[in-house]
């Protein structure tokens, strides 16, 4: 049985040792720089870096499920843009009555690259960072510890709730509820399925808030942590490198826009 929906796994890798902040900075840099500079190469370059990092952390296989979720919508985007994008077009090929359009296809490739890049760099952060470390970092930077609690608890409370759903489905089916058939039948099935979940989870909140209250959840004292996260010695260096890369890209973009850049770099 799955106890936490967090995708994090401790592999004692290089990325596991970096602070959440540094990895988040990488996410920002990896998303922003390709969009600023444009063209395809920056996207592909950052994707390659992300994939390399994921391989190093032995978690690339986990990225697969995430890609699958977004994969379906990406395919529809490519189809819709290639065959239906309006305006003037250059014909690539014909598929029955449909015309594949070069402009639409290229446009969809831009979307594809951007989305995949975001997914991969996000994976670098998500697959290698413990939720409670994310929270501790946020709290140390002034986020409300109470909200921090809510954030971390989600990873365990949601699977606790969804676990009951199969029990409820079986119970309602055994009482003769139909979950297949016409749209009307299926709509009718929705309420009896969801209401027990809502009732029980809301009633639980009352006890849970008392349990938290009696353990000093509303205390105004400065919170401490049982274990402090100690980032690796490379942490600050990597952060510095990321900032330098980011600033030089901004400079590059400005120079390019003002036309000061030598011709061979444009």
């Amino acid at each position: 049985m799955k106890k936490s929906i967090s995708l994090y796994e401790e592999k004692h890798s290089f990325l596991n040792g970096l602070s959440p902040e540094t990895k988040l900075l990488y996410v920002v840099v990896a998303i922003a720089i390709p969009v600023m500079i444009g063209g395809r190469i920056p996207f592909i370059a950052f994707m390659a870096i992300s994939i390399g990092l994921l391989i190093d952390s032995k978690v690339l296989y986990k990225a697969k499920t995430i890609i699958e979720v977004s994969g379906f919508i990406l395919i529809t985007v490519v189809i819709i843009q290639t065959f239906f994008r309006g305006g003037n077009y250059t014909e690539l090929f014909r598929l029955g009555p449909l015309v594949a359009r070069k402009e639409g296809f290229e446009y969809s490739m831009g979307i594809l690259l951007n989305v995949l890049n975001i997914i991969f760099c996000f994976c670098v952060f998500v697959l290698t960072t413990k939720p409670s470390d994310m929270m501790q970092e946020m709290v140390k930077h002034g986020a409300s510890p109470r909200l921090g609690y809510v954030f971390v608890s989600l990873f365990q409370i949601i699977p606790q709730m969804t676990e009951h759903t199969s029990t409820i489905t079986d119970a309602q089916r055994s009482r003769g509820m139909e979950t297949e058939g016409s749209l009307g039948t299926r709509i009718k099935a929705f309420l009896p399925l969801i209401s027990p979940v809502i009732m029980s989870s809301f009633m639980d909140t009352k006890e849970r808030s008392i349990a938290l209250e009696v353990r000093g959840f509303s205390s105004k004292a400065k919170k401490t942590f049982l274990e402090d996260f100690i980032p690796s010695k490379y942490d600050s260096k990597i952060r510095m490198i990321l900032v330098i890369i980011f600033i030089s890209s901004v400079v590059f973009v400005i120079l390019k826009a003002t036309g000061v850049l030598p011709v061979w770099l444009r």
Partner: protein
Amino acid sequence: MAEIVINNLRYRYPETTRLALNGITCQIHQGEFIGVIGRNGAGKSTFSQALLGLVPNFYHGAYGGSVTIDGVNVKESSVDELCQKVGLVFQNPFNQITGSKLTVYEEIAFGLENFGVPSDEMHRRIDNAMELLDISELKNRVPYDLSGGQMQRMALAGIIVMEPEVIVMDEPTSQLDPQGSEEVFRAVRALKNQGKTIIMIEHKIEKIAAYSDCVMLLDDGKLVAMDTPKVIFSRDDLAKHGVCAPTYTQICRELNIRDRDGLFPVTLEETRALLDADMKERVSR
């Protein structure tokens, strides 16, 4: 020294018309084990939550009278101040898990983190509590993976690391199997031996009889009586208030076996002592 003084406590939940607590007045002294009994709906849980000021500060509603702990009026004070003096453990062990921790050890630390206790002090207190409740070997387990009895002891540990002088337990074993229930009572015995004040609501009347220094009988929000287990369980009107006496008391009542004060015994040990004395008397005659 935690001295609890309750004076004419009255309380009504929001959007209800009946008083859930109706004029309760009593005192509880440091180190006492108080058993609270009464039928369902008698006001036992409400009473226990009034000791921490959850009634009325969490539930809202209409409140009268006062509860003071060491002279501090709980209504004027906040739960996070009170919970360092009074701890609360309740029925459902599942809902007492914070959901934010991945190991039993971290889960027990939750309260200490909130109060800003330094890390090394936390480790010391958690190790002590786990040893006292005999859960040291569960240290690295996932909280949601434990059995009911283990979960309830983890909840208790999470409370006692905050070192309260008073521990309130609201039917801590009602959702546990016999083994889990026995585990929890062993833990309770350990706490009692430490000199903590314990206020326990419990339907297992034999346990109340065995552990309590003093029993509170509640009915319809009123305090019917507060006295030693013997006096309470020797009353003739228990059935009227929706509780029954321990088995030994019932048997001795049928056989009219009384002690010198005319009261019935409430535990096996007391019954045996009484019968032994009786036997000796007959032999010597």
